[in-house]
């Protein structure tokens, strides 16, 4: 019974993960204001400032 509940939870977790599109690891996210984004050359990625590869 307990394992049945556990199995349902795993199935639910997978369904939620597939539905929401969760991926392992975190995606680096930030907010860039519109005026900055629209300024020519205004947006540089974090990677750029770190020097890229």
């Amino acid at each position, binding site marked *: 019974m307990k394992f049945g509940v556990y199995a349902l939870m*795993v*199935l639910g977790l*997978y369904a939620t993960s*597939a539905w929401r*599109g969760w991926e392992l690891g975190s995606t680096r*996210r930030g907010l860039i204001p519109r005026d900055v984004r629209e300024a020519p050359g205004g*947006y540089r*990625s974090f990677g750029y400032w770190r020097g890229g*590869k």
Partner: protein
Amino acid sequence: MSGYEARCPSCGAAIVFSLGTTLLKVCEHCGSAVARKGADLEAYGKVAGLIPTPSVLALGVRGGYAGAPSFELVGRLQLDHGAGTWDEWLMAFAGDTWAWLAEAQGKFHYMGVAPLPPVPEFEDVRVGQTIDLGPPGTFVVTEVKTARFVTAQGELPFDVKPGSALHYADLSGPGGQFATLDYGTGSAAEALYVGREVALDELGMRGLPEAEDRRKRAAGESLACPQCGGPLEIRAPDQTQRVACPYCGSLLDATRDLAVLEALARVEVKPLIPLGAKGTLDGTEWTVIGFMERSVTVEGVRYPWQEYLLYEPGKGFRWLVLAKGHWSFVAPAHAGDVQTMTVASRYRDMHFKHFQGGGAVVDHVLGEFYWAVARGDRTESNDFVHPPHMLSSEQDGSEINWSFGTYTAPDEVWKAFRLPGGPPRPEGVAPHQPSPYTGRVRKAWSTALLATSILFAVYLALLIGGARQVHRQSVEIAPSAVPGAPEAAAFTEPFVVGRAGNLEVRVRAPVSNSWLYLDGALINEDTGEVSEFDVEVSFYSGRDSDGAWSEGGTEARRYLSAVAPGRYVMRLAPQWEAGRAVSGYDVEVRSRVPRLYQVVLAALALLMWPIVLSWRSMRFEMQRWSESDHAFSGSNDEEEEE
């Protein structure tokens, strides 16, 4: 019944053979055994007086059994095979037919005459041997002995002198049938009797004490030990053959006025359940009347266990066996119902695996016993298991007995007998201890496999209809561009992600022995949220002493987690190996892409518990079989149990 009247050749008194087929008659006047030899009579001399037995039957008692014509007890034969005397009553039916009613240890066996098939001679009959008795079926020999014709009363269907040694073999057949091969005084079988155990009440005998009265009569006699004077309460006086005094341990013969067979000064063991204690097991209140400690010795190490003899007048005897803190409730089993193979047995549609065999020795006895027990008695025992049951055989040279045990929780025994404190802590795993994993492993696997099937079905459904391409674009890199320079970066055309989900960014680039690295950013034009990612395409190939080789590919993917619906652009800043410029690349973006690794992780999470349970179950079985004569085979009884 046809009668034959004559004069006793010894005293001249009138004697009547009530059955035309009876050949021996004990004269009621002078006690001589008179044999009928054709038209003549011959006196064999006076027979000994009857040995007192607890029987409530008597000559002249009438009854009716199983729809057969009414019968009358017309003869009584007393036999002794050295371990006690028993009665055989001759039942005379109307029409000159007859049957035996054997009475021993409080049990009655109705045995009718059956056609005698070809059977082995007495010297060739062995305990445990199977013999085809024709229509009654195939029987197992359970006892091969020679009994002495002690005395008789009334008339008998054979012409044998009192005092003669009579050979016989008892057999057990299917469905609780019994059979006796009567070899008389020779080697060739003379008669076959087949029947079954009957309760006295089934025989419809008139004039006998009621069953309850009989039980009360047998409820207990108080005597004193002739060795130490200690009071002895005999709780099964009609069946007890041996009494071991609980005060001094002396072994007494209950069939001969408690004659001392072995004198001791002190009791060497103390039972955990006191003699006389009453406890309810299997719905019946049992009284502990005997206790014995037995052991086997393997490679110089003694392995003891204890057995408690339980008695209930209406149901007979049972055993409670204690070994290493594990208890078993044991009942007798009909040998004829056991199918034996080399390493297995079958009983009551259950398959038992052989567990252990060895020579068991009686070390200590206390209380009363229905057989002629003695310290040092040795039997060859074999145990077969089908948890929670154990089938055991015990065999000496002339007798084999089977028993059927059921594992009983120690607390249940303690509670049944209302014993103080707690039971001894069980050690290890008992041969027939039910596995705590029984049923759970199969159920866990069933649940896990069902859930995993659902999991893959969902994944398949998502794979077929889930993913959707939201953008595709080819990007050229100017020949003058410098790797990593802002000027080389490109923004994609805007694209719309319609539903929340992950996002797959797939990049294809014509790299060969070089690489292309993209520093990417997914920008939500509505909210300004930027999701950073990078992706590298690299492909190298060549040839060495092992032949051609390659590494990487011209395509790479990156997945972005939980991207919200909205309008997006991507900024892609390329870098490449100096001197190996890449002309451009293709980028494809797909939304809501099913991910196999998630299914695999979920499946592992589902299968983990059944795998753990299976492992634990296997460990339990390994521990169980480590004490056996057989190496652990890896088979799991619980699968058969289901």
